[in-house]
């Protein structure tokens, strides 16, 4: 279906990533936001606070990130599309409820405008140090979806997509911006509402008395009943059966947790989005995401100018990881070069998938700035020597 026109600020704008993300959420139909201020994500909730009352929504600044991350889930079960917004220290506080959302299959979007850590770190400067936390920061086995935009235009478009994925798969979706993308101002084109594809959770289809709140459908996702409609649902973070009732057995635990993981892992072809540049004849492929995927385009240009056969692979959706495509590429190329604004996180997945078929070389950066494209080029040249 197309978007509710109230939330769509159609036109050509000059926005930073944080503001574009806010517009993406409103365009997606998000009408309840709870948040707590933290640099460098505050601009998202500031714009939400100003805009959401004009589109029929509610923003409440909560007492902390813990409250924000669970209040959105109350609103999600109340039928709303919801999000909260934070950065490293706040996201750390939200981890408990990312696990709760995964376990209870509550659709919600967590915006993380990453800054350098650990702890308070560099509050105003970029990093990509939360990638593994986004995936597995809460305790126990689960899978989420993480998206990594690299421009304000994408902050708009992919925020809309994040809501669609959250609704379709009933998972928390981590929107992994970083300070550079959040504070970068560029042209953002917001289309007409009817040009936007909007997805909603699947409501119950069968007879009410036969409804089981956690019986998965073909896509491994259960239908989601609204509150106050006679379904008498019970939702718990405890291990539960198809009725939603707690059952403390290894069998029920196995069935539930395997499904929660498989609904993402086994349907990754529906979720993964990749971009490739000059990959056809490449001997070295640079794997980069987020802001770094723009930095490496300069490296690519310099390399090609020198006649080096280099390409770029960019996972737009980082989790689940695009395993199949990278496995193919590993057989084609000599090496993967992986620059990240951390000391080696996504590179571990690349290395695992390459499985010795191609060398994998990390270009680390502790955060607080971006890579020098030349530094990445030097690593590429080293590999090709």
């Amino acid at each position, binding site marked *: 279906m197309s978007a509710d026109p109230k939330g769509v600020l159609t036109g050509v704008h000059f926005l930073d990533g944080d503001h574009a993300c806010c517009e993406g959420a409103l365009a997606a139909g998000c009408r309840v936001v709870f948040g707590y201020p933290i640099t460098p994500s505050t601009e998202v909730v500031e714009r939400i606070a100003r805009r959401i009352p004009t589109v*029929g929504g509610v923003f409440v600044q909560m*007492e902390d990130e813990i*409250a924000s991350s669970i*209040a959105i889930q109350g*609103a999600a079960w109340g039928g709303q599309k919801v999000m909260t917004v934070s950065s490293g220290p706040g996201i750390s506080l939200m981890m408990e409820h990312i696990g709760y959302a995964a376990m209870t299959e509550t659709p919600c979007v967590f915006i993380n405008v990453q800054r350098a850590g650990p702890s308070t770190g560099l509050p105003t400067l970029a990093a990509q140090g939360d990638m593994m936390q986004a995936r597995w920061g809460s305790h126990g086995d689960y899978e989420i979806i993480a998206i990594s935009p690299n421009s304000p235009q994408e902050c708009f478009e992919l925020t809309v997509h994040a809501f669609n994925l959250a609704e379709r798969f009933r998972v928390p979706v981590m929107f992994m911006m970083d300070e550079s993308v959040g504070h970068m101002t560029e042209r953002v084109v917001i289309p007409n509402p009817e040009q936007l594809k909007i997805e909603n959770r699947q409501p119950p289809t069968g007879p009410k008395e036969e409804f089981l709140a956690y019986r998965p459908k073909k896509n491994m996702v259960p239908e989601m009943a*609204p509150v106050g409609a006679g379904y008498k649902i019970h*939702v718990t973070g405890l291990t539960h059966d198809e009725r939603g009732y707690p059952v403390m057995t290894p069998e029920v635990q196995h069935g539930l947790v395997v499904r929660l993981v498989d609904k993402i892992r086994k349907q990754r072809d529906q979720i993964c989005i990749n971009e490739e540049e000059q990959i056809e004849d490449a001997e070295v492929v640079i794997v980069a995401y987020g802001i770094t995927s723009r930095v490496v385009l300069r490296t690519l240009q310099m390399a090609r100018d020198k006649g080096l056969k280099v390409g770029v692979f960019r996972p737009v959706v980082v989790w689940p990881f695009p395993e199949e495509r990278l496995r193919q590429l590993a057989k084609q190329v000599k090496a993967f070069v992986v620059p990240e604004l951390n000391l080696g996180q996504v590179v571990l997945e690349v290395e695992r998938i390459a499985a010795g078929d191609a060398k994998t070389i990390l270009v680390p950066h502790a955060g607080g700035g971006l890579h020098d494209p030349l530094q990445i080029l030097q690593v590429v040249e080293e590999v090709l020597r």
Partner: protein
Amino acid sequence: MSKATNPVESYLRMDRMPSIWCPGCGIGIVVNCFARALQQMGVDHDELAVVSGIGCTGRIAGYVDIDSFHTTHGRPIPFATGLKVARPDLKVIVMSGEGDLVSIGGNHLIHAARRNSDVKVICVNNFTYAMTGGQAGPTAPRHSIATTAPYGSFDKPFNLPFLADSTGAVYVARWTTYHVRQLTRSMAEAMSKPGFCFIEVISPCPTIFSRRNRLGDGLDAMRYYKNSSKVVNGANTRMVGLDLNGPIIVGKFIDRDRPTLLEAMDEEIGSKLGKRYVPYATTGVQR
């Protein structure tokens, strides 16, 4: 002859009985009073939702045949606030224990009271973390014995009605599980009143708290509540703190009116934005 049924069964998930609660525990009485309050009010099952946290009392959500949410430790109040914001047409009731609501969830409690979030909090106070085996909690009386206070609790307990009152609750009452009629009436009053309502229920934990503190069984707790309680409606909440095995002041302490979170939001933003304000209530999610 048909099987005899309990009149409150329609509010319970009978397929989950028996409950996990011990003999003599007061939580079942609280559930009974809640169901009777709903019955007396003639509230339909679909007009409300129940939200609990973690602990013995947190299991209430699993036993009521109502849309119900068993959330994380300490967080039922912000979950309830979110649900109420999304569905202002529903009554949203939080039922949880004092360890959940006042210790780990204390920050949420005081802020929900401050902003007058329109949720009803029924806080079962049994003075201990019973599910984990009897550790000292935020209301553990001075000198009471707990596994984590083996020589006696030495820090000052919270006086819950005073806490709720001073942070802005519009309705504050305290009863014991002996006072079933009064408790039922208070629940009905709170559920009919807009704004943040707080009811403390003093409840026995014979298996853990009473045994360790040599306070007898469930029946002894009832005798104690009967003999040591004094009804003082409108009491100064500052004066209603509790001691181990001491007198218990019960009653309805606070009943006042002020705008709820959403009312205040509508008023403030509406007065500034005029026609540009699109109140959430007009956009209609399943209403």
